Each structure stands twice: as structure tokens, then as C-alpha cells.
């Protein structure tokens, strides 16, 4: 009898523990909602002050400005990702059109140069039928894009876009904007990014179509080509910083040198690896539209097509964030009073957007390498470049940083 009783006792205490912590959480939420949000974002104050007078909306506004939810929804979360995606897709189309003597997207929202065209495309995808081909493996076919989308969104939460503690000019100290802080964030982000490809191979394989098959094989080939370069270039620059903690990395860069000057070879290798990883030109090999329709994504339609189409752009966004963090001083920049706590995030965003714009510009400059040429290039000259970057980092680390 006794062991049974003890088990019941244990189970009860467990359940009550959960209930009590749940009540605590609810209490803290209610407590938070009843208090005033402490976000220091001056340009939002008029709106917040107005919404505070509306009965139910004010609770929602409070909830949104609760830090975990704010991070998840706005910066660095979903809304900023969405804005980045829409901007970069529009910008790529518009810039390529400009170079090629065309006009590009214009009809949707004419006054702002067709900026809302990606939204219009999104709505079209929404109302299009999502066809699952007979020969496809239904489960993987449907769930693959979601898995890949999650894998490509997750790294964003490991890349802080502001310092940990932020002291305003008037002396108050506020929390910076970041998703998850572990101290090994850069490594985790890189690990998640390199997982991404397995998802693409999965969806290509599940489609069970000849074009997706070829596209998948090409994706896998290119994956073997850039993965080592990407990881080694990150390792090379981390050797100089001596840490994978993003806050310390940016601090090092602000107090010493930007990473791009400290180790330009690693930057170059990272840039080319990013081009390969996000299948930008001249490495747009897996999705070569004049050869294999759309590579691994050929069979998709409807909203899931929209999802898989934006995935490479999302990856581009994540890798650009990483590049700014590792090589371009991160969020360092003069304080802008108007944006308050968002000021570092704005600087981070501007740098990231410039990097993304440069990356998509390659579409109008380059053609496409053959798969074997790209692979040969990555395993000969690029590998040599990244090893040179490693050696340079070691020299800097052993001869310059350690003696100091």
C-alpha cells in the first residue's frame, strides 16, 4: 500500500507544482498588464498613449509590449523577418529590372513603385489550390516546407540585434533586444543554418519528380561545397574574438577593429559561402530555372510554394545578420533619440539591408556556373582561401592579441 500512496503523493505534488507555477505565470502576466510597459521607444509613445484609453485594446497593447512576446512578434521576430523578405524580394526584382532596361513590379501600389507586389503575390498564393501530386509522399511533402521554414527562422532568435544592457543618455539602463542568450549563440545559429539543407533535400525527395530529383542532387552537391567554407570562415573569425558570445564579439569589434579589417579573407570566404548557401547567382544551381524548372520546389503550388520560394531569402536574411554581427561591427552606431531602445536595432537593420542588397545584385551581373565547376571551385580555391583565413587568424591571435 505504501509505495502506491507514495507514488500518488508524488504525482499530486508534481501536479500542484505545475498548477502553482502556472498560476504564478498568470499572475505575473496580469501584474505586467496592469502596470505600464517600460519600453523606451519614443516614436511609439503617441500611439501607445492613445491606445491606453481604449478599454480592451490597452490590455492587448500591454501584452504585445511584454518583452518575450515583443521579441517573438516584432524585433527580431516575425514582423521584421516579413518586412525584410518583402523588401528584398521587391528590391531584387526592381533592381534587376532597372539594370535590364525594364520597369519591374509597378501595377500594385504605383505611387511607391510597386512595393506591395510581394503582398499581392502572397494573397494570390493564399487563394490558389495546394495540389499534392499523386506520386509524392504526402506527409513529407506537406510537412517538409514547415520544418525547413522553422529551421530557417529559428537562428534569428539566437542573433541579438542590440547590446545586452543599454544605457540611455539620460542615465536609465534598459534591457537590449535579443531573443535567446546562451553564450554560444553564433555556433547555434550556424548549426541551425547548416541543418536547413537536409530539409530541402527532404522536400525534393518527397516530391518524387524528375526535376526535383535532379534539383535535390544538385542541392546536396552544393551543400557539400559550401558547408565547410561557411563553418571554417566563422571559426576563423571566432578565433580572433576568442568567444562565440555575440555581445562580447561586438564589444571586441567596437574596442579594437571591425572583423572585416581584422580578417578580410574570412569575410570574403563567408561572403562567397553565403552566395552559395542561399543559391544566389553565380551559384543559382539547384533552382536553375532554364534547366530544371525550379529544382526541389517544382511540385509546390499555393501558399506552400510561397513558403518554399521565400525560404532562400530568409536564409539570406539570417546569414546577412550573421555577417553584420561577425564582420561589420554589429549594432554599433551613434544613438538615435527618436528610436530610443530600438536605435541599435536600426543600425543593425541598415547594415543588414545593405549587405542583402549587394547579395541580390549578383543576379543582374553573373551567369550560372556548372555544378561541377562550382564544386571544383569550392574545394580548391575557396578551401585554400578559408585555410589562409584560418592561418591569418592564428597569426593575429598568437602574435598580436595574446601578447597584449
Amino acid at each position, binding site marked *: 500500500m505504501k509505495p502506491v500512496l507514495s507514488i500518488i503523493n508524488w504525482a499530486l505534488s508534481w501536479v500542484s507544482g505545475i498548477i502553482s507555477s502556472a498560476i504564478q505565470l498568470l499572475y505575473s502576466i496580469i501584474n505586467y498588464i496592469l502596470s505600464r510597459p517600460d519600453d523606451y521607444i519614443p516614436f511609439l509613445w503617441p500611439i501607445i498613449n492613445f491606445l491606453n484609453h481604449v478599454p480592451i485594446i490597452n490590455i492587448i497593447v500591454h501584452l504585445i509590449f511584454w518583452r518575450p512576446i515583443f521579441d517573438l512578434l516584432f524585433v527580431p521576430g516575425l514582423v521584421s523577418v516579413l518586412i525584410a523578405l518583402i523588401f528584398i524580394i521587391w528590391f531584387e526584382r526592381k533592381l*534587376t529590372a532597372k*539594370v*535590364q*532596361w*525594364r520597369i519591374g513590379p509597378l501595377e500594385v501600389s504605383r505611387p511607391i513603385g510597386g512595393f506591395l507586389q510581394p503582398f499581392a503575390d502572397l494573397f494570390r498564393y493564399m487563394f490558389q489550390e495546394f495540389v499534392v501530386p499523386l506520386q509524392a509522399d504526402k506527409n513529407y511533402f506537406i510537412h517538409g516546407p514547415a520544418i525547413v521554414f522553422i529551421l530557417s527562422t529559428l537562428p534569428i532568435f539566437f542573433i541579438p540585434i542590440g547590446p545586452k544592457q543599454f544605457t540611455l543618455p539620460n542615465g536609465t539602463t534598459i534591457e537590449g533586444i535579443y531573443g535567446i542568450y546562451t553564450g554560444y549563440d553564433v555556433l547555434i545559429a550556424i548549426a541551425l543554418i547548416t541543418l536547413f539543407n537536409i530539409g530541402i533535400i527532404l522536400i525534393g525527395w518527397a516530391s518524387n519528380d524528375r526535376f526535383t530529383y535532379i534539383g535535390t542532387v544538385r542541392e546536396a552537391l552544393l551543400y557539400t561545397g559550401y558547408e565547410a567554407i561557411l563553418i571554417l570562415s566563422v571559426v576563423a573569425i571566432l578565433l580572433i574574438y576568442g568567444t562565440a558570445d555575440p555581445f562580447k564579439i561586438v564589444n571586441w569589434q567596437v574596442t579594437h577593429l571591425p572583423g572585416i579589417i581584422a580578417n578580410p579573407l574570412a569575410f570574403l570566404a563567408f561572403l562567397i559561402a553565403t552566395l552559395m548557401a542561399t543559391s544566389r*547567382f*553565380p551559384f*543559382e544551381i539547384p533552382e*536553375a530555372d*532554364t534547366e530544371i524548372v525550379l529544382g526541389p520546389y517544382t511540385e509546390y503550388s499555393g501558399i506552400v510554394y510561397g513558403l518554399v520560394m521565400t525560404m532562400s531569402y530568409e536564409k539570406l536574411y539570417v546569414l546577412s545578420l550573421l555577417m553584420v554581427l561577425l564582420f561589420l561591427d554589429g549594432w554599433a552606431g551613434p544613438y538615435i533619440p527618436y528610436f530610443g531602445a530600438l536605435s541599435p536595432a536600426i543600425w543593425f537593420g541598415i547594415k543588414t539591408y545593405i549587405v542583402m542588397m549587394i547579395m541580390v545584385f549578383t*543576379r*543582374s*551581373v*553573373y*551567369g*550560372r*556556373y*556548372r555544378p561541377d*565547376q562550382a564544386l571544383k571551385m569550392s574545394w580548391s580555391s575557396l578551401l585554400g582561401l578559408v585555410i589562409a583565413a584560418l592561418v591569418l587568424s592564428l597569426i593575429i591571435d598568437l602574435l598580436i592579441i595574446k601578447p597584449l
Partner: protein
Amino acid sequence: MGMGSNERYAELPVRMEVPEEFVKNFVPIPKEYVEEAYRSEEYLVFIGPQHPGSGHMRIILRLKGDYIVDAIPDPGYVHRGVEKLAETRLYIHILPLIERPTIQDSANFDLGYSRAVEKLADLDVPKRAQYIRVILAELSRIATHLYDTGILAVFIGHSTGYMWAFGLRDVINEAFIRITGTRTTLSYTVPGGVRWDVKPDVLNFVNELTNYLERKMKDMESIFVKNPVTIHRLKEVGVLTKEEAIKYGLVGPFLRASGVEYDVRKVEPYEAYSEFEWDIPVADEGDSYSRFLVRVEEIRQSIKIIRQAVKNIPDTPILSEKILSRIPPKDRPQAAKDIRTFLTKTHVGLTPGAGEATTLTEAQEDSCYLH
């Protein structure tokens, strides 16, 4: 496993017979070749006929596993039976027909046909008509080279090269509109001259066009022709040596890219080509990139010829005396400028006696051989 390696693959008593289709349908490879391939455990795979970008063709691949042992091209699907259709038509009717094989390069084909008829009927062509013909032929050559550049750019995934080449080609089509009234399939050259005279402002436009083209070709060169990716993709691909090129009977830019300095316009100058100063672009490598470069250089030479032709164009009638003599004298001054309303009088009745005439014309992709 205890078994010898020979015993692992048992000989199956299956007779390897050539499929019936080889006997029934026309297949451009000998029967022995098929049998030999079957006996040596290889596959013959027919790919196409399809349109991989440069005309419909079929490729017969001989495969050993994943390796391509042999690839036999089987072109000829764009043969339109022009010769048979031409048998029952008037000489003037054949003009629109003769230019169908290459829509973009119609000026050169019209020119070849007109010259053959002129030879038969013993017509002389006035100088102004010759100059206009040369301008059209060279414009047409540039347009077709640009067209090919665009298609090549698509193949190697260079969308800007495609857009620019087609954009430039459209400017030339605009010149065609102003000179002849149509964008493609001009039918403007007729036996004995051209259809109507070119106005001075149109000639001015053509001259400005050459300046514009030259400027834009410089940009094009920096973004596409000299692009490292383009060089990577095309260098040392599809190499044809000089001997092979001569043996297979290559013509045009392909021959010149293999190191043979041969151009019909220089070897047997027709029209007014002997009066212009220009060079034959030649390359020695014989690979895809040199074939491309030769054509890019040819665009430059064509621009040179057009400039000289526009500058030195003489002021004479545009129709041969023999053709004009078929028109009543009071209409002759009008017909010397524009023949459209008099075609029934001049060309419908144009029936040279039975005979043979052969002309060679340097068209864009090939020498147009008309017999």
C-alpha cells in the same frame, strides 16, 4: 560466395534483335551500328525531337550505364520543303517563302535568292540598291548575332545578357520598320533592286543606330562577354580543330572560329562588298567561347560596313534598267523611287528562261547556298 566471377552473370538465351521501329521508320544511323550497340550491352536512347534552344533536333545517345559513349545529332526537323513549294510559284512569290528558314536573317536569304534570279534573267542592279541591300544584310547579321547572344545568355543563366541583347535587337527591328515596313521577314529585296527608296532621315537614323550599338556593345562586353562566369562556362567546350572544321564542311563564324580565314564577302565579293574596308574576324581556339567572340567581333565589323555604306550611298535609281523598261515611260520616274504599285507589271511577268544559277551568300549562321 564460392563462385567464380564469371558465374555470377548467367548468359540469358535472349535474342538481341533490332526493334521493328528501326526498320519501319527512318533512323539516320546504320543498322549495323544498332546491332553492335545491342551486342555490347549498351543502350541507344533517342532524345527528342525537341527544341533545346537552337532549332528542333534529335540526339541519339549511346549509353554504357551512366556514361555517354557516343552522341549522334539528328537535325533537319526544320526542313520546310521550300524547294517543292517553290516549284509551282512565280519568281516574285518565292521571296516570302525563301526567308522562312531563318526569320531574323531574312535579308541575307532574300539577297541570295534575288542574286540567283538576277543571274538567270541577266539583270544589273544599280549601285544605290546594292548599298541598301548591304545595309540591310549587315543590320540583319547584327540582329541575328544579338539574338544568338541572348539565347546563349539564357542557357548560362545570365538574364541581363538576354535582356540587353534582345533590347538591342529591337532597335535594329525599329530600323527595319523604318526602311522596309516590317520587323522581320522583310521581303524587301526583289530581283533587280529593292522595293522602294530609303529616305535620308532613315539613313540618318541608321547611322545614329550604329553609334548607339557601338556604345551599348561596350557595356555588353563588360557585363556579359568578358564576364568570368561566361568565360568559365564556354572556354574549352566543344572544341573543333581546323582540320575537323574543314572536314565536316563548317561555314560562317563557326569555320572562322576554328582558324580558317574564309568569308564569302571577301572571297567572292557580291553586291558592293568589295568597296568597303573591313576585316574578317578569326579565332584559333575553335571552342564555344571563340565562336562567340568571333560573332561579337563580326557585329563590330558590320557596324563598320554600315557606316561606310550610309556615308557613301550613291544617288541612282533603285531598280535595274531592264525592270524599269517594262513600265510605261510616264510612270518611270515614280517607279524608280517606289515599285510597289508596279509589281504586277515588273515582276509578275518576270520569267527568265530555263537555266541554272548558283549564288553564295554569307548569311549569319551559314553560307546561304542557292541553286
